[in-house]
C-alpha cells in the first residue's frame, strides 16, 4: 500500500488502513511523515479524553465502561491503550484489551495497544500520532489510557482535551492531595472502587484540595473539576462520568479555552518533534565525522565535560 492509498483508507474509515497507519507512524517507517502531513488537516474534530491513574486503579475497566456508555449515546470511539516497555529487553506485555472484551465485535470501536518504548511521561512518543490517525478516520471520541502512573507523569494532559485522573481509596493520607503533579492535571476526578472503605474520605480530601485551588496557571477559572465516584467493574457512576466529559467538552468549545489549549498543545508537539528530529540529525552528523566517538571517550575520561562536548557538536552543525 502506498502512503496515498493508506491515507485515503484512513480517511474512509477502513480498519485495516487505520491499523497499518498507526504502525507506520509508531515505527517511523518511511512515509510516516507524508502520511501524517496528509492526515493532519483532517483532524481536530474528535474529543480526546485522557485516562490516567496508578497501576491497578481500574483504568482499563473504566475505559471499557466509558466506551460502552459513549456507544449507547451514539458516539464512535477510538482507544489508545499504553503499557510499559521493559527497560531491559525492549519487549512489552500489552494487556489492556483483557478488560475491554465487552467492546469486541463493535464496528464503532477501534482499540490499539501501544508500548511506551522508553518514553517516561505515561505515554509513548507516537501516542499523539496514533490519535491523529483515529481522529482523521472520523471517530468522535478518542480515549487515551496511560500506563499506570505515580505522581509525576503528566504528558496525557498535553495530549488530551479532557483529562480524567483516577484515584482509589486506601493509598495515603490527605498530604498526598496537597502534592504537585498528577492531581493538578485533572479536568475530572474519578474516585474508582467507590464501594471500598475510605472512598468517601478520599472524595472529601479531593474536595478540600479543590477548595484551596486558585485558577490553574494559563487556564480559565470557568471550570471546576467535578469528583465522580465510580465502581468500574459494575459500571456504577459511569453515566455521570460521561456527563462530566461531555460538559467539559461543551465548556472548552463555548469558552476561549479550546483555543488556549490548542495553542499550548501545538507548542508542545512542535517542541518535541524539533527535539527528536534535531537530536537525530546532529547525532548522525557527529557520528559520521567521527566526532561523537571521540567526545564520548573524552567525557568518560573526564577530560571534557558533557556541556562543552555538546557545544562542540552544535558548533560543527548537522
Amino acid at each position, binding site marked *: 500500500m502506498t502512503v496515498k492509498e493508506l491515507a485515503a483508507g484512513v480517511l474512509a474509515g477502513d*480498519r*485495516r488502513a487505520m491499523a497499518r497507519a498507526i504502525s507506520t507512524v509508531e515505527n517511523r517507517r518511511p512515509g510516516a511523515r507524508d502520511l501524517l502531513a496528509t492526515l493532519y488537516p483532517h483532524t481536530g474534530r474528535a474529543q480526546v479524553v485522557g485516562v490516567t491513574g496508578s497501576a491497578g486503579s481500574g483504568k482499563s475497566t473504566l475505559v471499557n465502561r466509558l466506551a460502552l456508555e459513549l456507544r449507547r449515546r451514539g458516539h464512535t470511539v477510538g482507544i489508545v491503550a499504553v503499557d510499559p516497555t521493559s527497560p531491559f*529487553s525492549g519487549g512489552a*506485555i500489552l494487556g489492556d484489551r483483557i478488560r475491554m472484551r465487552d467492546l*469486541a465485535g463493535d464496528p464503532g470501536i477501534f482499540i*490499539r495497544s501501544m508500548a511506551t518504548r522508553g518514553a517516561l511521561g505515561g505515554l509513548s512518543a507516537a501516542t499523539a500520532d496514533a490519535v491523529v490517525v483515529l481522529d482523521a478516520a472520523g471517530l468522535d471520541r478518542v480515549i487515551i489510557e496511560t500506563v499506570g502512573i505515580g505522581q509525576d507523569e503528566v504528558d496525557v494532559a498535553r495530549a488530551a482535551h479532557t483529562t480524567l485522573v483516577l484515584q482509589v481509596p486506601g493509598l495515603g493520607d490527605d498530604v498526598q492531595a496537597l502534592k504537585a503533579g498528577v492531581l493538578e492535571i485533572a479536568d475530572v476526578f474519578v474516585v474508582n472502587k467507590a464501594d471500598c472503605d475510605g472512598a468517601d474520605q478520599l472524595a472529601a480530601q479531593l474536595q478540600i484540595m479543590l477548595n484551596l485551588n486558585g485558577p490553574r496557571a494559563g487556564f480559565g477559572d470557568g471550570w471546576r473539576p467535578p469528583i465522580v465516584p465510580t465502581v468500574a467493574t459494575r459500571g456504577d457512576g459511569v453515566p455521570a462520568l460521561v456527563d462530566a466529559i461531555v460538559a467539559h467538552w461543551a465548556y472548552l468549545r463555548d469558552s476561549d479555552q479550546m483555543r488556549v489549549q490548542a495553542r499550548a498543545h501545538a507548542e508542545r508537539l512542535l517542541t518535541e518533534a524539533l527535539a527528536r528530529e534535531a537530536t537525530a540529525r546532529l547525532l548522525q552528523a557527529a557520528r559520521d565525522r567521527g566526532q561523537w566517538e571521540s567526545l564520548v571517550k573524552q567525557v568518560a575520561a573526564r577530560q571534557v565535560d558533557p556541556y562543552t562536548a555538546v557545544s562542540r557538536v552544535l558548533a560543527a552543525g548537522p
Partner: protein
Amino acid sequence: MTEELKIRVLVAKPGLDGHDRGVKVVARSLRDAGMEVIYTGLRQTPEMIAEAALQEDVDIVGLSILSGAHMVLFPRIMEQLRQRDLDDVLVFAGGIIPDEDVPRLKEIGIQNVYGPGTDTRDIVADIRRALGRAGT
C-alpha cells in the same frame, strides 16, 4: 525519522479453557526476547481474535488451546483472518494438541505446533526465522 521495528505478537486463548498459565509463560518469554505481546485473556471467539489481530496490526498470532477443540476452532480462526485479508499474518499454535492433528493444522496454514515441554527459546527462534528478522 529513524525506523524502529518491533515484532508484534497477539497471543490468544480461543474456546473454553479454564486457565492460561502456559500462554502467560510464552508471553513472558516473547517479552523478554524484545517483542511486543498483546494478550487478550481467556475465552476468545474466532471473530474476536481476528479483529484484535487486525486492529493491533500484528506480525504473529499465537493460539493456545487445552480443551481439545482445536480442529473446530483453528479453521474458523484462519477463515476469519482470511476474511480480513490478514493472509500475511503468521499463525503459531500450542497447548494440548495430538501429533496426528498436526499435519491437518499445517495444511490450513498454521506454521508450527508446540506441545508441553517446548523450550521457549525455540519459539523465539522460529518466529524470528519465519519473519526473516534477526533483531528484536
